[in-house]
């Protein structure tokens, strides 16, 4: 039999904790299982995107900016086009819609990033032309022959320098080098109680500054895509993407092709960690296949992966705590800066996630946060394993240690004292439930041989919460700092022109309404069959799908769960 790491002591279940909240009729958890794709992995037969052979495969390689910021006076592809083995050289003029922001698919943000820039570059390595050639070597040689006349512009590489008055503007649509949320504020705010009043009554004021550098995901398989014309007027695209439908819809948008003409195949990803969601390769590979009629591979080499692959962005955090002598944190103020790099991509969303996470898993009655998505002339940042949370968690926990030192407490005791208890009100006005930080701290202390106070040992997530701690403060100090006037949100849903165009472009949508789906009868589990099943109401008649009335507004991320439910 296979060995079981869980019984080897690598994982230990503490089933006595919250035993009454759980029924232990679990079939999978706690038992080893074999992943379904592992036979493919150990035989080398798992089909990664580059494991598809095409006759006549062409190779694409980009010519890139050597400057952090520059105006493009002229792009001359003549010499590159004459280079041996070159089939075609693409510039931004070949891209049907040469401007995008990833979250436009969710009606969030303004299109800001070209596929191939025609007028300006905003980070080192930004692509300005894509050479398609018979071999990788020929494409590489020709890409070096794309001549660009640059007018070098001043650049800015630090978040706080970028928001100073007079700093070079990275993106013209965001003149303050800050993403604008919902057309109203140049940052995300969290206001709960009154931190300034609480600071005046606190015994200690403890401040800290924390930062992380960008981190490249560095998957062993570099990002890429292969696209080829099919015989049915569609294009097949094998891709390394972690977000297949994101890549499909982005390609559909940028190439102005209905998604029904795109046949995307993915799902076997050679390591992603967030770095394969940007949908950079698929649009260019498909465009190459469209314009040459041949299969085209666009694959980053390792150097490109490291230089232009979107990393986890840099972050800088300032934290100021008001703390009582006994260790209670009564106020916490954050100022945070996320380095989005030269374009938005997903950093606007990372900031929302971060703010939803504040002030960490601690009940603090006064919280204030201003968190900025800042543009700089660095490689655009993107997703990576818990992005939005990881950096600020590092800052919060480093700061907790600093607070513990200042008040002379054991850091674990300090955490238990301030931890969320069930029923506590969080700073974003949701009630904490199913808390378990205290129990985790107690187990950690035991394992590490740390002697906790008797109060810490006796503490429980289920005791001491709620009541006064469960109330929203009677007074919350508000302000208009960072208010932006007259800013167009750029929402798709609000653009009448696009509405009309979308309706016109999709006549099939107004065709006969599909039959309403049959209500699904839930399968009753034996254990639940005894209780009377509620009557299943008939499904409401489905309205016919038409161009429809305009939606009332853009979908917004809620501060907590990502999307506002509709």
């Amino acid at each position, binding site marked *: 039999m296979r060995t079981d790491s869980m019984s080897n002591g690598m994982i230990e279940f503490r089933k006595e904790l919250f035993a009454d909240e759980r029924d232990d009729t679990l079939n999978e958890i706690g038992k080893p299982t074999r992943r379904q794709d592992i036979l493919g992995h150990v*035989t*080398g037969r798992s089909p990664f995107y580059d494991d598809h*052979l095409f006759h006549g495969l062409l190779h694409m390689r980009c010519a890139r900016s050597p400057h952090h910021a520059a105006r493009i006076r002229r792009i001359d592809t003549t010499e590159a086009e004459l280079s041996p083995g070159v089939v075609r050289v693409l510039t931004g003029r070949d891209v049907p819609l040469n401007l995008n922001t990833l979250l436009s698919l969710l009606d969030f943000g303004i299109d800001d990033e070209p596929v191939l820039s025609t007028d300006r570059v905003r980070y080192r390595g930004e692509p300005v032309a894509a050479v398609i050639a018979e071999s990788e070597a020929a494409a590489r040689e020709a890409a070096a022959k794309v001549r660009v006349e640059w007018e070098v512009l001043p650049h800015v590489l630090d978040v706080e320098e970028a928001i100073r008055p007079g700093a070079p503007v990275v993106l013209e649509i965001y003149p303050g080098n800050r993403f604008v949320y919902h057309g109203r504020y140049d940052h995300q705010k969290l206001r709960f109680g009154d931190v300034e009043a609480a600071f005046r009554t606190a015994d200690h004021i403890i401040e800290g500054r924390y930062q992380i550098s960008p981190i490249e995901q560095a998957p*062993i398989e570099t990002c890429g895509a292969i696209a080829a014309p099919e015989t049915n007027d569609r294009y097949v695209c094998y891709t390394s993407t972690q977000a297949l439908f994101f890549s499909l819809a982005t390609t559909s948008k940028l190439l102005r092709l209905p998604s029904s003409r795109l046949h995307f195949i993915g799902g076997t990803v*050679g390591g992603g960690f967030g770095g394969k969601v940007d949908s950079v390769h698929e649009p260019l590979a498909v465009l190459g296949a469209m314009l040459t009629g041949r299969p085209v591979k666009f694959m980053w080499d390792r150097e490109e992966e490291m230089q232009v692959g979107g990393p986890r962005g840099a972050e800088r955090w300032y934290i100021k705590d008001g703390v009582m002598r006994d260790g209670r944190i009564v106020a916490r103020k954050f100022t945070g800066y996320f380095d989005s790099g030269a374009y938005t991509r997903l950093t606007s969303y990372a900031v929302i996630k971060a703010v939803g996470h504040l002030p960490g898993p601690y009940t603090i009655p006064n919280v204030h946060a201003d968190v900025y998505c800042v543009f700089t002339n660095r490689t655009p940042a993107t997703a990576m394993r818990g992005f939005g949370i990881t950096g600020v968690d590092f800052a919060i926990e480093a700061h907790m240690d600093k607070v513990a030192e200042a008040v002379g407490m054991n850091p674990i005791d300090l955490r238990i004292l301030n931890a969320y208890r069930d029923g506590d009100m969080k700073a974003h006005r949701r009630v904490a439930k199913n808390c378990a930080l205290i129990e985790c701290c107690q187990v950690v202390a035991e394992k590490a041989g740390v002697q906790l106070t008797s109060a810490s040992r006796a503490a429980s997530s289920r005791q001491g919460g709620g009541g006064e701690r469960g109330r929203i403060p009677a007074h919350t100090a508000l302000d208009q700092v960072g208010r932006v006037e007259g800013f167009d949100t750029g929402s798709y849903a609000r653009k009448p022109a696009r509405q009309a165009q979308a309706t016109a472009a999709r006549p099939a949508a107004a065709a006969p309404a599909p039959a309403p789906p049959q209500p699904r009868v839930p399968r009753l589990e034996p254990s639940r069959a005894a209780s009377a099943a509620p009557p299943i109401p008939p499904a409401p008649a489905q309205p016919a799908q038409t161009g429809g009335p305009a939606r009332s507004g853009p979908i917004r991320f809620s501060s907590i769960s990502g999307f506002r439910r509709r």
Partner: protein
Amino acid sequence: MVMKPVALTLNGSFRAAFTAPGQNLLDLLRRGLGDLTPKYGCGQGGCGACTVLVDGEPHLACLVLAEAVDGRNVETVAGMSGATPHPLQEAFMAHFAAQCGYCTPGFLMAAKALLARNPRPTREDVVEAISGNLCRCTGYEPIIEAILSVAHGSARA
């Protein structure tokens, strides 16, 4: 461009192909001979994903000129299993020694070469043998355990 013929034994079969000047073994195997099991990770000998055996010794296929394997015996993961998986493959499955699977063929080749020259390696020997292979999903510990289990005859899954 002058193409050059090469003839080699690939996983026990006699194969021949034309190589272009400067073509590396990885490209010959993948594009020329259709063996897609060695992977491209860096093209600079840094990651080990393209590790294959040439006359039994592990080599980085991205750094070997294709014409250099003329008359040689090349082995890849494609030739590892017969009707049933190789004990190393069984061990990698049993020990969860693959996550995304992209680096796995390289690790298997490095492990196979190790066990061929040293059937009873120590843990240090295993670590040394896979030191040229990178796994970004952080799987080194299960990989080491998997290789050791084969060496110590406890690999039956």
